[in-house]
């Protein structure tokens, strides 16, 4: 079970969180034209890579904040966590 540092609450066990996918995906702006390809990339296409990965988690059973977590998907090492509004560096 992972141990995730919520930027708001501190170190908490994984079972307080829910996973939210790739944090680098940006939702296209509302009302803007977008190609089928770009839309498909946003909705469906994910890299699912092995290695360092910025991902979203929600501290569901805690502060309910969505956070960004930089995790190695192979080793589960967590390098950094950010608040929702903080940009991935």
């Amino acid at each position: 079970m992972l141990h995730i540092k919520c930027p708001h609450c501190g170190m908490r066990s994984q079972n307080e969180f829910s996973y939210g996918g790739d944090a680098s995906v940006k939702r296209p702006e509302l009302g803007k034209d977008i190609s089928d390809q770009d839309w498909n990339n946003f909705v469906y296409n994910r890299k699912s890579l092995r290695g360092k990965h910025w991902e979203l988690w929600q501290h569901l059973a805690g502060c309910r904040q969505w956070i960004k977590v930089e995790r190695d998907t192979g080793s589960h090492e967590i390098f950094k966590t950010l608040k929702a509004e903080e940009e991935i560096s």
Partner: protein
Amino acid sequence: MTQSFRLKDIGLINRNKKLSFKFNGKKYYGYEGDSLASALIANGVHLIGRSFKYHRPRGFFGAGVDEPYAIVQLYRNGETEPNIKATEQELFDGLEATSVNCWPSVNFDIGAINNFLRIFLPAGFYYKTFMWPKSFWFKIYEPFIRKAAGLGTVSIKHDKERYEHKYEYCDLLIAGSGPSGLASAYAAAKNGARVILAEDKSRFGGTLLTSEVNIGNKSGKEWADGIISELKEMPNVTVKNRSQVFGYYDHNMLVMSERVSDHLPKTKDFHPKQRLWYIRAKEVLISSGSIERPIVFGNNDTPGVMLSSAAKEYMKVYGVLVGKNPLIFTNNDSGYETAIEFKKNGIDPLILDTRSNPKSEIINEAQDLDIKIKYSYVVVAAQGYKKVKSADIAKISDDKEQLGNIENVKCDCICVSGYWTPTIHLASQSGNKTKFNEEIDAFVPGKSKQNEKTLGAANGIYTLEETLKDSFKIGSEVSKKITNNENKVSFPNVVEKKSSIHDKFWCVPLPKGKNYKRFLDFQNDVAVSDIEIALREGYRSIEHVKRYTTLGMATDQGKTSNLNGLQLVSKIENKVVPAVGHTTFRPPYTPVSIGAIVGREVGKHSKPTRKSPMHSWHEKNNAVFVDAGVWLRPRYYKRGNEDLFEASKREAKNVRTNVGVCDVTTLGKIDIKGPDAAELLNRVYTNAWLKLPVGKARYGVMLREDGIVMDDGTTTRISENHYHMTTTTAQAANVLSHLEYYLQLVWPELNVNVVSSTEQWAGAAIAGPKSRNLLQKLFPNSDVSNEGLPFMGYMEGDLFGVKARIFRISFSGELAYEVNVESNNGNFMWEKIIEVGEQFEIQPYGTEALSTLRIEMGHVAGSELDGRTIPYDNSLEGLLSKKKDFIGKRSLIREAFTAEDRQKVVGVVPLDKKTSIPEGSHLVKDSKAPSPNPKLGYISASCWSVEYDNPFSLAILKDGKNMIGEKLFVMSPLKNKIIPVEIVSSHYVDPKGERVRS
């Protein structure tokens, strides 16, 4: 039978407490403190079971967790449990156990024919032989294999025992209470660290219980006892016996199983049988010790062949002799210690040492005791079938290739020592890449991966002095980093005998013309020849060899077999052992019961149960409940002998003719506040929200980004910047997360807050033509007329002194209202509604009537909004705004979503107007078409229409728009039904929606 192998005046058992037990139906006696194994050996019982593949007789090989043979079926307090190691099971009064893997009995075993046919059962035999023809598998092969093999029988009864889970945090978790565990725990505890010290066995001390050493002025055992009692007194230390740390997971999370009650005849009241500990440790010290490894020779699986350390443990801990004429076969000094122990207890052993001229203090002591020793000697083969009767021995050349003349010596047991293998399972599980230590011929942990360190024998350190020094130091250093305290502990003086180096010899060559089976893996009957075959057939990776031959699999996970297997592969492949590598160590280290893993999350505890504030009223009024997600909801209120069908029909009919009341507390409710609340709703819902006036409700549908309907519900504007959203019961949590996702990550510029208010409000839906009359009586001071509170209107009211929210919304399709009060007033509201409603013939209705009402009205719900349908499929396309963008809109122009013949919700009526249509049935054009019959759609929801008194269903049907009036067939292969039906509009009752506006 008397305990004829029991020694006097030695051992840690309590001779004042005699216990009786049964093995294979026969009664025996043992003492408190015995293991089942030691008690059986005390009674001279060495035939315990039959081996897995060849059904060869099996005895005892070890004395603990490494035991590969002595697996029994245990009976305790009316329950039975398979796969219990007799070496680990503590004896209790009334214990019963039977052999496994033998049919019809342990002494006469039909499967043993495999032993004589074993030329046909080499590695991969099952894969090769039982594959073809395929049709034979279920009928012939599998039943045969199941009958002839297997390890015990699981109980199919409900397990009455209780299992618990516990979460714990500590500074240091120390796994193993041998010398390294005790020393490091003591040093860390003295520095003030929060320490958990876990011991797998019932007794603390590990090898200190059996070794002849002195620490300070005490014996090893006395020192261990002293440390343990001191640790137990310290408030910052938790000491646990019968507790196996079996798994090392990510981020220093370890799991330990504590056998709380398995050693008792019966679990005490309110105690668990076992407890699973999830321990998050800042630092982990692995002090799991080492396991003696066997030397491979002919027939080395015969009962009576066992590890020399086990023989010593049976003597020193249990006061039991494994034999009265022992042969010790060793490549190092450990065998001498066992021999010396035999001698001290009046037994004359014979030592065969593979080494030609070893010199050490221990060997000197053996010589001084006049113990017979043969140097450069090996056991070629054990003789005897159900028990060792003699051994064929021979001199071996210095290069270990040539055997001299074979001699036969009488013996009743062969105690083997092939040196020691560090128990590196936990270290390896932590991600530590192990390395090969040439000196001890075994793998040891490498660089730490997580916050773990391995101490003592588990790290390949085999002298006590070094182990203690190292462990004190590490315990102190690691804890000091956490607590910033340092209390120096004086290091005790250690007296131990020095050993000489071991002989890197692990397998006795076959003598000319002999074809003895030489076993590597005793539990799975994997012999040297099996590995040779696997390699000859091209298997190279050690992981493949393992799976093909089953080496190191099964319940002992190769604790005694792995290294010898690797030695063999490396020898044949002409590689060094580290180049072959070892198979991955995976948790659990030793079997864990399913009950412990599941914990208390069984039956009704498997998920939380949520109840509405009116629950007790429902109970008192004969409600029959149904699980709705985690909620318990009344399904119907039983009157007299009514069944579900009759009751729900009555309740629904009463809504259509008079008035009914339904508990809708479970609906998800989200409180939305902020100047941008309308904008948020406008983006989340598919229809327009910016112009909804205060005091009005609106129905809305929300999509996922892929265009699939996520949820629906009404949202009401309570005041300028305050909205009350409702969701379906099932989706409440997901919708909240969904809103939080967009507010926090996608549109942080929106000034809105959302919070769940589901539990803050109790809700009652009041539905039926007389509902307004009832409402007027409930709220005499409010104008609830059609003008004062029109359809989709909202107002606040005073319910006999209680503040209430009144929404004019309808799910039933009737004139209807929903009244919400604060939860603590829920029951008051409900009772008032029932009391005042009596004059209007009010009846409560449950979820079944609720479904009937919505189905015949054609209102879609969870069974249509099932995560596979888009708005069009549910005839909700009228709610899609063309003017604005919203979540998921872009996906709706996908080709499949806009196809001319796209599926759509329709109504379905059986032609005979009688036959009920099973939910989940398929719709087909031709009921007699050959299989696979093209499926046009499926029945999503069925009811008995109370309006027309005939069955009615909703279906999602291909090209539903153009299918109204068509005759099709409903097919339910599950219920074996074919029903001719007509497709009608999904709005079966009141298609113009006049009632809700009346």
